[in-house]
């Protein structure tokens, strides 16, 4: 048996011919992307398929997408999935085989199916969600109560992001005295998970030390064009957010599906500006509640005052009537007293007059002049009436009064 020896080129040409003749179709293939880089507009990928345990690769191949195709497929894929092609993604590609004598085997990519990747991402998200629910942490954030006076905000964002500036400016423009502190984190690429967890840990330390006192955490991403957001869909990050003791507001800026982070956070908004708006509205609502209470107090006080005024008015209406009663009574009393006075006075005067008359009569009856007239006389000694002859000594001068005249005599 003769043994033919080929040159490498000849042998490689044989392989190329065989492939070209037997595999001249295009094929759809599902694979995981283990490497992806672009060079001069061409995209170079490495595809793998792992075993069922997901550890050991059981197939591996190079794939290329030439610049003319890639310039169409890249924006198409990004627009549909919200992320760039990167290692770890499951993708579905339309390929044809190419074997080049000098460069070896490669699949040439002519199309890509973003819905497959989306489906795979959704499956992964579902898996994370299932796990979070199983751990009983999925709804923990929803049970936290947002402080009605939420003013001290811990912010996780990239320091240079425009969204962070918008957020801070919007809060500063509000009528409330918000205080924010930035915990810088990388908000894109593979660093997302570790970076945010580390920032959360710093906030937690501050929370434990109670200095400063944060009311809530805001995780915002700086806007911009579509970027790789798959970093927000990891189990470790979701667990950290879900179990965080302070309410977390996410403003990561997804246009399409909710990320797992959004699902487990206390409140999900679309943009950093919306996060600021949410915080302002929270305080607006609180102010509204206070105003309502104030209104109710005022209303109650006004009502109470009106009732009291009415009561007073009713009393006031009764007062004149009551007083006129008093007045009539008092007037009558005074009239009575006044009426009693004059008869009493007259009576007294009359009584006295009568007494005088009696006295007068008696006095008249006793007048000595009457006795003298009848012939009696009276004898006085030193101006006093003499009743006993013994009461004068001989030689004493006595005076005898007669009706007409007076006799002076000496006692013998």
């Amino acid at each position, binding site marked *: 048996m003769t043994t033919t020896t080929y040159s490498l080129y000849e042998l490689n040409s044989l392989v190329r011919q065989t492939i070209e003749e037997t595999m001249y179709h295009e094929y759809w293939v599902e694979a995981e992307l283990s490497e992806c880089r672009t060079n001069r507009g061409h995209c170079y990928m490495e595809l793998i398929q792992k075993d069922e345990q997901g550890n050991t690769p059981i197939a591996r191949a190079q794939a290329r997408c030439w610049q003319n195709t890639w310039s169409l497929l890249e924006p198409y894929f990004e627009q549909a999935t919200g992320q760039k092609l990167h290692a770890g993604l499951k993708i579905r590609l339309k390929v044809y085989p190419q074997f080049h004598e000098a460069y070896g085997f490669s699949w040439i990519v002519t199309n890509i199916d973003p819905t497959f990747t989306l489906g795979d991402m959704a499956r992964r998200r579902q898996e994370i969600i299932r796990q979070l629910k199983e751990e009983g942490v999925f709804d923990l954030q929803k049970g936290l109560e947002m402080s009605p006076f939420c003013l001290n905000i811990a912010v996780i964002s990239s320091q240079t992001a425009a969204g962070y500036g918008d957020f801070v400016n919007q809060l500063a423009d509000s009528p409330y005295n918000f205080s924010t502190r930035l915990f810088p984190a990388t908000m894109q690429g593979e660093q997302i998970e570790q970076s945010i967890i580390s920032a959360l840990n710093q906030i937690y330390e501050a929370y434990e030390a109670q200095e400063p006192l944060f009311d809530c955490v805001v995780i915002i991403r700086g806007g911009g064009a579509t970027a790789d957001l798959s970093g927000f869909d990891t189990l470790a990050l979701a667990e950290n957010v879900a179990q965080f003791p302070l309410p977390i507001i996410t403003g990561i800026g997804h246009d399409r599906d909710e990320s797992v982070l959004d699902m487990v956070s206390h409140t999900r908004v679309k943009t950093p500006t919306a996060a600021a708006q949410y915080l302002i509205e929270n305080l607006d609502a609180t102010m509204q509640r206070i105003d309502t209470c104030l209104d109710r107090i005022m209303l109650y006080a006004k009502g109470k005052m009106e009732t009291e005024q009415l009561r*007073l008015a009713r009393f*006031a209406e009764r*007062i*004149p009537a009551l*007083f*006129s009663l008093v*007045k009539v009574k*008092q*007037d009558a*009393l*005074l009239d009575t*007293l*006044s009426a*009693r*006075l004059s008869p*009493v*006075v007259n009576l*007294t*005067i009359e*009584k*006295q007059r009568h007494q005088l008359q009696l006295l007068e009569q008696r006095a008249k009856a006793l007048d000595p002049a009457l006795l003298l007239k009848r012939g009696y006389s009276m004898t006085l000694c030193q101006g006093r009436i003499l009743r006993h002859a013994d009461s004068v000594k001989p030689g004493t001068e006595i005076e005898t009064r007669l009706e007409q005249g007076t006799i002076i005599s000496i006692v013998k």
Partner: protein
Amino acid sequence: MTYEESLKQLEDIVRKMEAGEYSIDELAEKLTLAQQLISQCRDKLNRTDTEIKKILEKS
């Protein structure tokens, strides 16, 4: 002197007068005092009436 005090004094005078407790010398003096008290009490009643009406008109 309050209205009550005036009224009490007036009643006292009338009562004593009716009981004949005053001498003639005191009589005129007490009668004058009684008339003064009556007039004071009437004044006070009328003034209070006017005042009450005024206060109620204001409120």
